[in-house]
């Protein structure tokens, strides 16, 4: 196990509510690290609607998802949080009173005095294609991500999709694969034009195959794929021999490991105390879309409010001997110093 990263509070989820939690905790001298499964901050705002206007942020008549993420990043800059992107928290273990040991799917370990779950709708995970009997092949010869390119050396590969993930991995793996086939439902690609041109040049040179259609059936044994049946745009069925398949159909929200963290979930949401937003596990908080309480509204502004109240209780755990005096950023020179404006 690697050396644990010690922090006051670990925030799970770097969406708008997780980001604002950094601000509210920061004002109370609480240091934070954030973990997010996406490779960027902003959560749903960044992944689902970066360009779409949001109309219900108080005092901001109109802002895009991307704009909101950027403004929050600017607002929390004085507190210098550390981000761990592209990682998913898998376990949260109590090791003190309260003290938590948190681990990620990349083997990173944290120790924190409190944990804030700001995980929105759960974690964004790859969409799994609805092919009968795909389960036994998953993570053995069907992969939704490439962790080690060497796995695919001298293999027959089938990559499915038409976006940047499919094209990037096509271009990266083609030189080391025995033979690579790219399959897409139409002969038009939404990926970066430069990648599309490179891919088309490889096809023209006979260095890889491009097929139009969708996978309908898989063949193999013990999780090892040997072939896939492809239904062409014209309805014709053909068979492609392959050792591995990499489907790239974008992401979808799944509850994920939250289900295993010892909460009695209500409709896949974490019940919390409405004055502190603490869960049934002391020191563990849940704010934003992931929590539930009587009257809950899944609004970004509700999550902001929850972050402010959560910070008050988190302070008890992080600085138990310090008395907490409520202050305003407009008048407190101590808060202004923390914000770097005084």
């Amino acid at each position: 196990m690697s050396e644990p990263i010690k922090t006051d509070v670990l925030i799970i989820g770097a969406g708008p509510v997780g980001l604002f939690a950094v601000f509210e905790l920061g004002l109370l001298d609480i240091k934070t690290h954030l973990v997010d499964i996406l490779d960027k901050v902003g959560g749903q705002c960044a992944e689902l609607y970066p360009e779409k206007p949001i109309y219900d942020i108080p005092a901001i008549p109109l802002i895009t998802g991307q704009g909101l993420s950027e403004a929050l990043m600017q607002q929390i800059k004085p507190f210098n949080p550390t981000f761990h992107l592209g990682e998913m928290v898998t376990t949260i273990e109590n090791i003190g009173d309260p003290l938590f040991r948190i681990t990620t799917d990349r083997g990173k370990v944290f120790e924190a005095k409190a944990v804030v779950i700001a995980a929105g709708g759960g974690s964004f995970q790859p969409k799994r294609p609805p092919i009968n009997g795909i389960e036994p092949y998953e993570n053995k010869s069907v992969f939704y991500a490439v962790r080690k390119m060497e796995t695919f050396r001298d293999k027959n590969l089938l990559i499915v999709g038409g976006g940047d993930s499919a094209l990037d991995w096509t271009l990266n793996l083609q030189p080391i694969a025995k033979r690579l086939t790219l399959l897409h439902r139409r002969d038009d690609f939404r990926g970066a034009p430069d990648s599309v041109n490179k891919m088309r040049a490889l096809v023209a040179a006979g260095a890889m195959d491009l097929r139009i259609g969708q996978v309908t059936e898989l063949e193999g044994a013990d999780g090892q794929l040997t072939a896939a049946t492809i239904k062409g745009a014209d309805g014709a069925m053909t068979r492609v021999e392959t050792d591995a398949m990499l489907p790239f159909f974008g992401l979808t929200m799944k509850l994920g490991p939250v289900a295993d963290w010892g909460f009695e979930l209500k409709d896949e949401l974490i019940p919390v105390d409405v004055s502190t937003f603490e869960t049934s596990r002391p020191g563990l908080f849940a704010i934003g879309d992931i929590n539930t309480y009587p009257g809950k509204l899944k609004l970004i502004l509700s999550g902001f409010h929850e972050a402010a109240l959560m910070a008050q209780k988190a302070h008890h755990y992080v600085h138990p001997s310090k008395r907490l005096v409520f202050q305003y950023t407009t008048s407190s020179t101590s808060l202004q110093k923390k914000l770097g404006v005084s």
Partner: protein
Amino acid sequence: MPKITFIEHDGAEHTVDAEIGATVMEAALRNGISSIVAECGGGCTCATCLVHVDDAWSPAVGPPSAEEEEMLDSAFEVKPTSRLSCQIKVTEALDGLIVRTPSYQGR
């Protein structure tokens, strides 16, 4: 108010009232059609509100925009008449529309 009929994968039919100017996705959510997920809430960014428009209605509904066509790449079992229901605006002309919903929207 125009009526829309959703036929689910298992054959269950639901005919619902749809407000003019709303989207077919919104009509589905307001009436509890659970095979429409609409994860992104109508932003044309998630492809979890796929419908297969009835062949007879397909010309009236029309083809997807370029943006929607790209998003259809992230859906499954896409057919020539498939659309994202958040991108179909309800009009008087669509009164009686029939769409079929898939068994799986990717989650």
